[in-house]
């Protein structure tokens, strides 16, 4: 009995080990088998629906895609599973799946800041080779990161770009209208007026290093500064950076750091005057207490205007190890179709297309799309560097030290520069 028990246990362990150690090999297809169809499917039986899996950023970004899928599923006899993921989970999910010979995902949503590491390491499929090309209707600036060496890897799907989210009443009380906010000095004046009235002025997200950096970038750009030079090397200890940081300290002193949901609630309820936001966060109408406008990129009256709106465009692409590449590209082309994209607008879709953002009917119903179009035309992507995640982590930590008064501007920027140079392999 004891021997039998021991033998059974040993067998269980062997099976468990064998199952854990098995490497997923790509399914071999006969050369004449049609793509994306089970090779052994009997010819006379209706083909079983192919199952596709999409990894998308949860929220409005995924919802508008989900809305478009039933028509594609019916037309192509596919069943599509959508995974709504948080930003970090999406990033790690795509990367972890990339190490498998055959992946799980057919189509993925990619943030612009991940593009460099993904293309450098062959995570994404070459869409040009798969027969997809970007069309002229797409706002050209939004495609800047999608093409590498003349080859397309991504398509800009959701036009997320930083805007200035403000409370209409508090802006009015300070003697302004949304369209009148011409430079950063106006922003400061409004926030100081709100603070004097017992409200919070400028609210920023200080809950993660990435958010700390992203909310500061429009201010930095308005001062003509940037985080890397023309050779993509870190340059944060510069006069422009210092001037922007000193201004930002004065601005944030009128308000406080809050999480995204609190920031939106503050501006919506009038507890706070304004903050840097994204179109996907808020749907303004004539009745809503808050609205948004593009950041002009002018620091002080008379200064030059810089591109100051930072892209957070959600792009879509196909993983290099996608299980159904032909269907995936077909789906991507369908989702990028201008009519399909136009149909997503009432649900909160923000296409990076002139045909949608300049459509008269759309503008009559959603006037804010004019601002979004302007911001998308004058936007800037975060540095397309494989080192960007490490870079924003270091920079965010040092900016946090400055904002919390742990370090002076000079000390914080000098430390940031030296850490960026020494801790990252350039």
């Amino acid at each position, binding site marked *: 009995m004891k021997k039998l028990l021991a033998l059974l246990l040993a067998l269980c362990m062997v099976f468990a080990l064998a199952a854990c150690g098995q490497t997923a090999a790509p399914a071999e297809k006969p050369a004449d088998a049609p793509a994306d169809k089970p090779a052994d499917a009997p010819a006379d039986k209706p083909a079983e629906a192919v199952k596709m899996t999409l990894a998308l950023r949860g929220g409005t970004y995924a919802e508008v895609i989900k809305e478009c899928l039933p028509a594609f599923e019916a037309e192509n006899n596919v069943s599509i599973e959508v995974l709504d993921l948080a930003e970090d989970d999406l990033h790690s999910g795509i990367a972890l799946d990339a190490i498998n010979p055959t992946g799980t995902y057919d189509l993925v949503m990619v943030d612009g800041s991940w593009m460099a590491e993904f293309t450098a390491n*062959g995570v994404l499929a070459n869409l040009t080779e798969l027969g997809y090309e970007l069309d002229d209707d797409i706002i050209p600036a939004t495609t800047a990161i999608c093409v590498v060496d003349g080859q397309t890897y991504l398509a800009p799907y959701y036009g997320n770009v930083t805007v200035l989210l403000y409370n209409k009443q508090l802006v009015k009380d300070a003697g302004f209208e949304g369209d009148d906010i011409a430079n950063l000095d106006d922003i400061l004046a409004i926030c100081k007026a709100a603070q004097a009235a017992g409200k919070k002025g400028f609210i920023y997200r*200080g809950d993660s*290093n990435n958010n700390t950096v992203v909310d500061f970038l429009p201010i930095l750009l308005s001062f003509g500064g940037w985080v890397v030079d023309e050779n993509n090397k870190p340059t944060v200890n510069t006069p422009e950076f210092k001037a922007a940081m000193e201004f930002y300290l004065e601005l944030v002193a009128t308000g406080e750091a809050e999480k995204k949901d609190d920031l939106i609630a503050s501006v919506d309820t009038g507890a706070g005057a304004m903050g840097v936001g994204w179109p996907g966060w808020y749907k303004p109408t004539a009745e809503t207490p808050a609205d948004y406008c593009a950041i002009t990129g002018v620091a002080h009256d008379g200064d030059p205007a810089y591109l100051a709106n930072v892209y957070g465009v959600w792009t879509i692409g196909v993983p290099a190890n996608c299980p159904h590449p032909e269907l995936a590209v077909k789906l991507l082309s369908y989702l990028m179709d201008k009519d399909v994209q136009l149909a997503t607008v009432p649900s909160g879709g923000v296409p990076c297309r002139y045909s949608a953002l300049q459509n008269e009917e759309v503008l009559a119903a959603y006037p804010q799309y004019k601002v979004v179009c302007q911001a998308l035309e004058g936007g800037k992507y975060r540095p397309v560097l494989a080192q960007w995640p*490490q870079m924003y982590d270091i920079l965010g930590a040092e900016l946090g030290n400055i904002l919390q008064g742990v370090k002076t501007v000079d000390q914080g920027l000098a430390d940031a520069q030296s850490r960026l140079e020494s801790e990252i392999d350039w």
Partner: protein
Amino acid sequence: MNKNRERLVSGAAQTKRFGVSMITPTLIVLIILTAYPLIFTFYYSLTDYNLLKALKSPAQFIGLKNYVKLLGNEYFRKAIWNTVKFTIFAVLFEMLFGFIMATFINSLRRGQKALRTLLLLPYLLPTVTVALSWRMMLSPNYGIVNHVLSSLNLPVYNWFADIKTAFPMLLVIDIWQSSPFVFLLLYAALQAVPQDQYEAAKIEGATTFETLIYITIPNIKNSLALCALLRTIDSFRLFDKVNLLTGGGPANSTTTITQYLYNTGIKVFDFGYGSAGAIVMTIIVLLLASIYIKRAMS
């Protein structure tokens, strides 16, 4: 005589074989789930393994470079200090409150069961639920805590964004959630203390304090040590609350070792560097645990 001896030897061998066969499954599970990952993590810590870069070029052996980089990093040292500080305060207060609750409930003649259940509730909640509930309660906009404070004309705070309040708030939440665990273990231990000792102390005229010092504590000292050990290890691994509530900020004031490793190792797929951090953390936890284990065994 010889036959008897042979029988004895074969009986002993059989017992030994049975013992070995009984312990083997546990050993195999331990090897697969503990030893193998630990050895692999140590191996990775000596390489520059990056999940994405490894798709193009395999990881290289770089010796102790990750450890040098890690220990030379001021933010990692700060994360160690934050973790140690958090562990000390959390264990101290959780032990104190858990002990007070246990002795109080144990002294009740009625309502023990109801109060015991109520006190255990925070520990039964998932950490994510706890973190999100506290985040809502402490929200600077719609949080009940700030509403109550402002209605009492007391100063309000932006609890998780202020460098002065973020760390203490994390401590408060952890103490609130984990004190019931200490209470549960100590309450069980208190139930096992012989009542005649208390009766003898009462006859001898011992004060409440003397009873506590000379009877209660010596009787439950093993449980106290076990609680302290378990809470120390658990507090040292603190991650979920920090990640959900502060992300390690503001200005790294709440970054623990695990949060630091998540930000600089896992999030950027730098698994070699992350593994080095995990090994350092394992060593620290083992050192802390060994003190308790040694004491308990002696």
